């Protein structure tokens, strides 16, 4: 990105001068006065995604799949039902599919057309997931993208990219790290990073956790 592009973009992170602050405040005020929006409902939505719905949901799904072959099998056949069993349902998770990494194949999820992301298991998407650099390059240069996350795959490993162009939402099931054979689901869940469930990372090794 050139210096001029930075000129152009930096203001989005400068909250003091950000005209979006006034713009959104005005919008909320008008809609509230007109009885179309309840500010308390906005508070409840924000609280939901700050405290209740986030990548710990997905980590629990992955850990259970690692620990319980029958659950993994169910997850493979009907991810929506298997994930709902753990209580994770709803917006941007209505139609789920789990895709399993193997020694041969690494999965990577993107939405080239907008920002589709499995909210019910991962919460709100990170900024980079919604931004042009990731969306443009994940499908043409996934290894280059992964390198920017510090992940260098074996050249022999196949890369399978899932472009979320419809309402199916993809959850990557990373490979279970070696040396975790006796671990509880809860302890296993601690190894499952958000990025490992998007495919821009792998599960944390036990010695690093």
């Amino acid at each position: 990105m050139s210096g001029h592009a930075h000129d152009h973009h930096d203001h989005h992170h400068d909250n003091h001068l950000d005209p979006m602050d006034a713009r959104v405040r005005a919008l909320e005020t008008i809609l509230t006065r007109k009885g179309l929006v309840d500010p308390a409902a906005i508070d409840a939505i924000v609280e939901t995604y700050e405290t209740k719905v986030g990548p710990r949901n997905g980590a629990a799904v992955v850990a259970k799949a690692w620990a319980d072959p029958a659950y993994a099998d169910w997850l493979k056949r009907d991810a929506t039902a298997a994930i709902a069993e753990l209580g994770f349902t709803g917006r941007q998770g209505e139609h789920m599919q789990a895709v399993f990494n193997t020694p041969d194949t690494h999965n990577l999820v993107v939405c080239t057309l907008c920002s589709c992301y499995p909210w019910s298991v991962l919460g709100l998407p990170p900024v980079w997931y919604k931004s042009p650099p990731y969306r443009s390059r994940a499908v043409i240069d996934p290894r280059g993208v992964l390198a920017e996350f510090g992940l260098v795959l074996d050249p022999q490993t196949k890369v399978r990219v899932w472009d979320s162009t419809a309402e199916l939402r993809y959850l990557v099931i990373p490979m279970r790290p070696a040396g975790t054979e006796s671990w509880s689901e809860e302890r296993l869940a601690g190894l499952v990073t958000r990025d490992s469930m998007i495919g821009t990372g792998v599960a944390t090794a036990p010695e690093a956790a």
Partner: protein
Amino acid sequence: MNGPHDLGGQMGFGPVAPETDEPFFHADWEKRALGVTLCAGAMGHWNIDESRHARESLHPAVYYGSSYYEIWTRAVETLLKRHGFLSDAELAAEAALETGTPPRRVLKAADVPAVLARGGPCDRPVAAEPRFSVGQRVRARNMHPTGHTRLPRYVRGRTGVIEAVHGGFVLPDTNAHGQGENPERLYTVVFAGPELWGDGADPTLTVSVDAWESYLEPA
């Protein structure tokens, strides 16, 4: 539409910038933008396809020069105006000036957990047998509609293989424009990297898209 949103294979945006310990929001206005967008949508006057089309219809300079919550905010303003809930005069005055369309419903705080947990499923029964079967070679149509579509430009005209046959789903191409749900079967179609990107492509790469039946033709 061949809009600014259709980013697969485009170049020139620079490196991905992962953030360590990224916060949920980078400013308070982002929280309110998320909430306003969801509350406005919960009134029930437009669907997710119309929302997406409002976002991708932003001028490309604006689309590429804006953060995603800014894109959402600009699009929800468009939708609110289009459906009679908001006027430019109100935005200019930063005040409620007109009665406007009566909302079908208003999302209350107490209902937020249930509404978010329910989501908005868009699978629909389709009686007809699938036109394509698993393993079949298909070509993504070389189509360039001026309206909303979910077939990305980088697969159009390219040949892939059906990997999964799903049930029926609401067709975005009509649903975005108030022309009905017209559910069609959905297919996961896998393309080889060199088929998409030519001789220099990563030979280990495959890319799949989820494509509605009318997006595909036999190869």
